[in-house]
């Protein structure tokens, strides 16, 4: 799972609706993998407004990725250096093993071989 998609993901356990807690899912014990991807500035610029910036920064820091600006950047289409960083962080950084934990309900989503397990238990649906 690339970090761009992690930024879109909240907990989907039924009743876990407190948006201050069900997002972002906290990544723990992560094994990361950098996988080269084609550069695509236009796509990043289009996706940028969909990102939750604070969640992205905190998630990245948690994974020892410290090169994102704290404050939400402006005019990113003109900022080649930032686009380069965003490309690496969002489209090339993959979580290969580990887990995601919901701070709301405590559900643990295990990640194996790059695939998060989003299956829920009977009492969670």
């Amino acid at each position, binding site marked *: *799972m*690339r970090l*761009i*998609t992690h930024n*879109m*993901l*909240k*907990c*989907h356990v*039924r009743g876990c609706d407190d948006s201050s807690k069900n*997002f972002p899912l906290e990544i723990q014990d992560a*094994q*990361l*993998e*950098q*996988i*080269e*991807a084609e550069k*695509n500035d*236009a*796509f990043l610029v*289009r*996706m940028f407004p*969909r990102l*939750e910036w604070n969640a992205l920064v905190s998630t990245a820091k948690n994974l020892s990725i410290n090169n994102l600006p704290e404050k939400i950047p402006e005019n990113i289409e003109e900022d080649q250096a930032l686009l380069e960083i965003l490309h690496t962080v969002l*489209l090339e950084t993959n979580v*290969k093993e580990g887990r995601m934990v919901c701070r709301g309900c405590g559900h643990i989503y295990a990640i194996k*071989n*790059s*695939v*998060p*397990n*989003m*299956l*829920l238990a*009977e009492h*969670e*649906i």
Partner: protein
Amino acid sequence: MSRPEHLAPPEIFYNEDEAKKYTTSTRIATIQAEMSARALELLALPENESMYILDIGCGSGLSGEIIEEEGHYWVGLDISDSMLDLAVEKDLEADLFLQDIGHGLGFRPGTFDGAISVSVLQWLCNADKKINRPLYRLQRFFSTLYSALRRGARAVFQFYPENDDQVQMILSTAMKCGFTGGLVIDFPNSKKAKKQYLCLFAGSAPGSARSQKLPAAQGIDGEFSAPNSLRTTTRNPKKKGQNRTPVKSKDWILQKKELNRSRGDKPVPHDSRYTGRKRKTKF
């Protein structure tokens, strides 16, 4: 026709053996590729732009490969880990999730530019376990999908409904969850070529006043209205001149791959898209 969804729950039916059989059959690959291309076409995405697309019930990635070839980014969900294992092996540029779509989706509002689903939806109508209530599962699925899509985005499902009741249950549930749209039936009079696509619209994009119109079907001349303000479009396969080949027939894809191979400047799927992609593992 025997219906696999009557035999076992999907995560059991698509075990390692079945997943392999399914994925290595060129006949299946051809059909799935054609239907995926058609579903993508029905999404009516803007041209020459990379979009963020959800593939619902992505299986081993036969449908996703087509999304990727079109230059889009995609996220795939499937309940069968054997199918997903095969997708992972292909080294696709996708994010894959082991997920039961009947549990609902967990994507933030307005995440995706579109969604496709190829040969999956009929599975969701099946009460394959005591705890699985189809109507409840459909509701959970469509309501969370509606939210995950951008306003004005479409979701297109090629599926094999078992009967009219099933179609009605699906349509009315989708409408209750906010979608508009209806069925597009390609080649309705041909037993072999007939394909049904549920085309759903998640509202309209801000600023666009007009409501979305159901796309025209292939191979047909009649058009009639279905209940629930849903329209069904159909086309007759026999009519001359309208009999177009799907956007990406098998030949088209093979030709493109052949071309890419001979050019050598573009990664070619199947032989693993990024055989040469650099990977670095960090702890």
